[in-house]
């Protein structure tokens, strides 16, 4: 704990070995890139699992193409078995939430962007940062190992509702349920380490002149996200430890037979889980704000209310967890309270959406790939947010709860929201990471195809959800009331396959551009952020000398900018005065 803040950066003096530089690196940018590759891998794994789910739902009873390579415990004659299907839905959710979207947004972009955007040389604790990555990878591998142990992967859904998850005799999975708990404890540790770093760095390491209200919204969002993570993940860790003890040493926390409470797990899980939902969307909102302001060549509309909306969403996020439990037999009076707090979240969300539109209003819109995806984010997140209102209103939630409607809703938020934001953020900061541009042409093709197939995949899910198709059921066709809508399931499956195929365009673009992409100019997007004062890719240690910050992050088309339509934060105009650094604290620094 004592020396990490002052790890010497020999990078500037002696060349480091490959291992120190790229594998056991303490440089925030390398750690961000490590997170990027690892979480893209887990994203691909999650996607593959989703394809198998869609195959089973669209074509129940038909042999899975290529299913022959799977062992007999998963498929029988190529047909997915019910026990494997439950592993698929469990692991799809787990991987996507914990090992794909969360590290993509927080692991990659908090690491990569925070020091660059606030004008500092590295994180406050670079070595803890490295540990955070390696623990996250370890957690991911433990989770992945679930597929290769006897009885296969966990089988209780990504929410791991006890007592199904606590008792191997009921779920049928003995080893992997424990692996899930262990993996989550490790992941929690990793997240807490990372978030302590982000919070400390943002509070204490901002460059001179980077006042709180000069921080870009992406940094604000990542800051609030880190606060959510630091307070929410330990609750999940505690719950996972209790679950692990129930599974291994025979404690009775969630065992109703001995006075345990199954609902206690749900309360703890969702007390973590709802802030987690905002961990998955706030960074996306922040980065989209940056990109929309850039693409519109206009200051963000209502910067302060955008900041307070983020804080408001985060605050409300702590008192709404009960809306995941409306049908759980929870006290109905609590249900009323949770309904009101949930509905109120619509207010800050609406502020954000309208302010993004306000930013585009009377702008001078440039449709580069990040901007296209950011606009896609706004329009799709709106659908996801609005469909949430149906389930927030408790009576309407009754027929919709735990049906495909909620699946549609959460994918509109997590795919239409978070993933579109990532499709915007990855090309946007790609030059800063690798010094090259991703292909615009492939990027645009990828955006339009994804946008179309994505809506074809997830929009009909609302309708089959209204029709009553439950989540996580292996074969909808055995129900008479679901049979009529099976054609829609088939349609969704075909769209999903197309959607998955289109993602290889992105993957190709990403990998191909590493070596063959166009060399990036210093400021390819003509942006105002501090990071664009550096060459591409940014060197170890970032700036030679601590930079000064002279203005807010969104001074596009400002009158002072003259004939240019942007005015970077680091640019000193003749009228600007240098900021004065604050005094040092006692006891060391």
């Amino acid at each position, binding site marked *: *704990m*004592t020396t990490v*803040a*002052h790890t*010497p*950066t020999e990078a*500037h003096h002696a060349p480091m070995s490959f291992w120190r530089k790229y594998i056991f690196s303490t440089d925030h940018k390398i750690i961000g890139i490590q997170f990027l590759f690892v979480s893209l891998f887990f994203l691909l794994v999650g996607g593959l699992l989703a394809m198998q789910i869609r195959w089973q739902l669209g074509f129940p009873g038909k042999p899975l193409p290529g299913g022959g390579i799977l062992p007999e415990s998963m498929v029988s004659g190529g047909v997915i078995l019910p026990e494997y299907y439950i592993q698929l839905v469990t692991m799809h959710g787990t991987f996507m939430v914990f090992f794909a979207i969360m590290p993509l947004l927080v692991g990659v972009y908090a690491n990569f962007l925070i020091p660059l955007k606030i*004008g*500092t*040389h590295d994180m*406050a*604790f670079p070595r803890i940062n490295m540990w955070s990555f390696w623990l996250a990878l370890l957690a991911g591998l433990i989770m992945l190992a679930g597929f290769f142990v006897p009885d296969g992967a966990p089988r209780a859904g990504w929410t791991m509702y006890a007592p199904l998850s606590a008792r191997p005799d009921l779920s049928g999975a003995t080893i992997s349920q424990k692996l899930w708990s262990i993996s989550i404890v490790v992941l929690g540790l990793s997240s*807490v380490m990372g*978030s*302590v*770093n982000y*919070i*400390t*760095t943002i*509070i*204490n*390491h*901002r*460059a*001179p002149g*980077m006042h709180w209200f000069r921080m870009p919204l992406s940094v604000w969002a990542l800051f609030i996200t880190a606060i959510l993570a*630091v*307070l929410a*993940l*330990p*609750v*999940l*860790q*505690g*719950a996972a*430890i*209790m679950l692990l*003890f129930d599974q291994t*040493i*025979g*404690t*009775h*926390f969630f065992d109703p037979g*001995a*006075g*345990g*409470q199954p609902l*206690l797990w749900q309360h*703890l899980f969702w007390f973590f889980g709802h802030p987690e939902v905002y961990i998955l969307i706030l960074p996306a909102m922040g980065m989209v704000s940056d990109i929309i302001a850039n693409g519109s060549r206009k200051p963000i509309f209502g910067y302060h209310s955008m900041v307070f909306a983020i804080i408001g969403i985060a605050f409300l996020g702590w008192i709404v967890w009960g809306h995941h439990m409306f049908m759980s037999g929870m006290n109905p009076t609590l249900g009323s309270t949770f309904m009101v707090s949930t509905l109120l979240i619509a207010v800050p969300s609406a502020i954000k959406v309208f302010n993004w539109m306000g930013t585009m209003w009377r702008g001078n819109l440039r449709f580069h790939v990040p901007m296209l995806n950011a606009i896609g984010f706004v329009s799709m997140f709106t659908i996801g947010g609005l469909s949430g209102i149906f389930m927030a209103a408790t009576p309407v939630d009754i027929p919709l709860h735990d049906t495909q409607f909620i699946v549609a809703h959460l994918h509109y938020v997590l795919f239409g929201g978070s993933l579109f934001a990532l499709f915007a953020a990855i090309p946007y900061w790609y030059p800063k990471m690798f010094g090259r541009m991703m292909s615009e042409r492939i990027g645009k093709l990828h955006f339009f195809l994804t946008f179309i197939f994505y809506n074809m995949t997830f929009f009909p899910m609302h309708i089959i959800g209204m029709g009553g198709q439950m989540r996580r059921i292996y074969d909808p066709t055995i129900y008479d009331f679901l049979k009529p809508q099976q054609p829609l399931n088939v349609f969704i499956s075909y769209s999903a396959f197309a959607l998955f195929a289109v993602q290889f365009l992105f993957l190709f673009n990403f990998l191909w551009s590493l070596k063959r992409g166009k060399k990036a100019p210093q400021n390819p997007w003509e942006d105002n952020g501090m990071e664009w004062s550096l060459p591409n890719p940014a060197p170890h*240690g970032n*700036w030679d*000398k*601590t930079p000064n910050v002279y203005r807010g992050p969104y001074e596009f088309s400002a009158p002072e900018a003259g004939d240019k339509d942007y005015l970077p934060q680091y640019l000193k105009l003749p009228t600007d005065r240098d900021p004065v*650094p*604050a005094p*040092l*604290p006692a*006891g*060391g*620094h």
Partner: protein
Amino acid sequence: MQTTTMTDAMRPPVPAEPGAGVYSNKLGMWVFLASDVMFFTALIGSYIVLRFGMGSAWARPGAVLNVPLTGLNTFLLICSSVSMVKAYAAIADGKKYFLRKVPGKTLQDGGLKFWLLVTIICGAGFVGVQVVEYIKLVGHGFTPTGYREGSLLAEHALADPVKYGAGVAGMYGSTFFTMTGFHGFHVTCGVISMLYLYFTKVLPEKYSPQDYRGIEVIGLYWHFVDLVWIILFTIVYLI
């Protein structure tokens, strides 16, 4: 004391902007402690909820647990907390020594090396007593799953089910061992870190009134662990 190397010049003078008004290690430790509050909230909160759900079926205080032994443990931890803060005060005043004579006083004045050693000994003593407590409890038949069949406690519980909370022994064992176990784990981590600092930083006299970050940061952690124990002792052993 400030040695201006190339590395230091490159770094922003921390904090460049008014941050929390403290150096980063201390701020980081406070954020971590906030996070640890939530971890213990999950464990202690579950205990409160589960116990509340049981009504008055819980075992009477002192029936199963050895309160005098734990009272001794509480005393040890409080002592270690005060010695920790004395260690911090010592280094802030520049007293790096072990013991030193003060003119006109019979007691010698303790420095950082003395007070941190006292803290480590008390902390290790706490862990030791807790291990003894666990061994005794398990020997009597108190386990995380409840009262072991055929054990002394199981017989007692048969004879006096109200006093020993026979019906909810499983939940008693689950919550007791999880909460005190994770507290003990925190103490152990603290003792190991302090030992590490003692040999790498304190004995070589690397701390000074200008830079005592390690001592202050581990001190914060240690007092927090003490604070958690104060709450645990009351709600687990006395109520």
